[in-house]
């Protein structure tokens, strides 16, 4: 009888895992089923560019179904509950039917929850003077708001960590600084970066090399700020220790939480992330269940590049597991992120669980080298080119010539 590999979530991690495993598994003996609630596959790194008119909506969406390799079955449905004891998942479509599995991959991601902060979504200012940009709708509406911006106090606030793509808030303010200068509005705009962390940069080497970037651009920094609520009447945010930041435009990075299906199934932590072995990506408490991408609780960034390296490390390990062999601790927390800094330049950072972002060069056959922790035009083009690689290489189950594990070559330790 055929074995079933069930994948929950058809985003970056789930799609890559499905297509890579479709090449590795004998499809006469295996069914691969992907369940996702939405018809659209988003290129999420592109959302950042939408508020500034660099990308349009059409640049970041494609039909989800078109990405799956032949042999991968796609089920359009919300996930109701995961029942690991019975090795089955109840979906909401078709009157709530069950899908049984032999092996399960949870790749349900994480999402912003503005409703968790009082006054944010329910205070009458949502999508008028308060916006997120981690959703397509938020990014598109913010673009519209910025086109009519005449100056004032622009506050970017991160509600709490961890967040998806943790460098995007910094990129947003660098791009905002550039965009407002280009449009002659920078002198009329005060930009304030309000973070719950002790600084904009918190890793020693990055702080050393990049610490001056906010000051150079005249961006104000407020640290250790833990928002309690938005006061929509007075247009201020208020922290738990009663500090107030007035705003004309609030760009919020809301609390991020994993899927509600994880909570309903009782298999997640307080933020709905599934406790996961950091090196094999097997769910710690669950048999034959694996977790990829943003849905895990592993201490690395929630980012597409991490999902990519996770899948690269996981696929050969999963093939060992189904043969009854022990999994190897091959995932090292590797992340590799371009950081847009405005004016057509960017940075690149490369790190893992053990090694913080270091300066140096990042070799990439055919394209690189890119400069690490240093602003360059080439890094910016790397980021812009990446959208093409994402759609046509990674999501199609093809590989990039980058090893899954982080390399020290080129880094100045």
């Amino acid at each position, binding site marked *: 009888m055929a074995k079933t590999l069930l994948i929950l979530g058809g985003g970056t991690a789930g799609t890559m895992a499905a297509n890579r495993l479709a090449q590795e598994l004998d499809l006469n003996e295996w069914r691969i089923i992907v369940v996702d609630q939405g018809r659209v596959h988003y290129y999420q790194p592109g959302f950042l560019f939408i508020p500034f008119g660099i990308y349009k909506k059409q640049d970041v969406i494609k039909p989800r179904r078109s990405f799956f390799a032949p042999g991968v079955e796609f089920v359009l449905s919300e996930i109701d509950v995961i029942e690991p004891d019975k090795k089955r998942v109840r979906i909401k479509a078709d009157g709530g039917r069950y899908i049984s599995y032999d092996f399960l991959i949870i790749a349900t991601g994480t999402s912003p929850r503005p409703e968790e902060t009082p006054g944010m979504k329910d205070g009458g200012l949502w999508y008028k003077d308060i916006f997120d940009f981690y959703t397509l709708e938020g990014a598109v509406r913010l673009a519209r708001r910025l086109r009519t911006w005449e100056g004032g106090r622009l506050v970017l606030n991160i509600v709490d960590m*961890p967040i998806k793509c943790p460098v995007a808030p910094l990129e947003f303010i660098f791009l905002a600084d550039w965009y407002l200068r280009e449009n002659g509005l920078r002198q009329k705009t005060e930009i304030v970066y309000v973070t719950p962390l002790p600084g904009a940069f*918190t890793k*020693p080497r990055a702080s050393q090399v990049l610490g001056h970037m906010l000051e150079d651009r005249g961006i104000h920094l407020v640290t*250790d700020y833990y928002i309690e609520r938005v006061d929509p009447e007075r247009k201020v945010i208020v922290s738990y*220790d009663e500090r107030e930041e007035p705003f004309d435009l609030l760009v919020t990075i809301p609390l991020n939480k994993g899927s509600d299906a994880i909570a309903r199934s009782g298999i997640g932590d307080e*933020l709905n992330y599934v406790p996961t072995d950091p090196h094999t990506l097997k769910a710690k408490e669950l048999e034959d269940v694996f977790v990829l991408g943003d849905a895990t609780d592993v201490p690395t960034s929630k980012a597409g590049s991490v999902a990519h390296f996770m899948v690269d490390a996981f696929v050969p390990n999963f093939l060992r597991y189904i043969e009854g062999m022990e999994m190897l601790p091959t995932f090292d927390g590797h992340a590799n992120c371009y950081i847009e800094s405005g004016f057509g330049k960017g940075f690149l*950072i490369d790190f893992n669980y053990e090694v913080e972002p270091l300066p140096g060069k990042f070799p990439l056959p055919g394209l690189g080298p890119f400069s690490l922790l240093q602003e360059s035009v080439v890094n910016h083009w790397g980021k812009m080119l990446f959208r093409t690689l994402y759609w046509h290489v990674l999501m199609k189950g093809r590989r990039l010539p980058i090893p899954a594990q982080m390399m020290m070559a080129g880094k100045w330790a």
Partner: protein
Amino acid sequence: MPVRAIGALQVEVDAEGYLVNPQDWTPEIAEAFAKEEGIELTDRHWEVINFVRKFYEERGQSPTIRQITTGSGVPTKELFKLFPGGPAKKVARIAGVPKPAGCI
């Protein structure tokens, strides 16, 4: 890394005074670091400190404020009164675990 003497102990600390090796931690270190932060430790502080140490041992990372309040049952307002200015980073230092950090 600089080495500090706390009572009879010699411990390595980083540039910001955080323990380099969380396993070096002792309750005396907590008392000494708390005093430097201007905090007199009460039972309620210890509930938070013990929770943070347990969280770090189990998960290999320092908890966020939300993780502390959900996990320990101490409300956020009270947490800010117990560790004024920045509860997550202050309790991390006192509990001998790494300072909460972003990716860069």
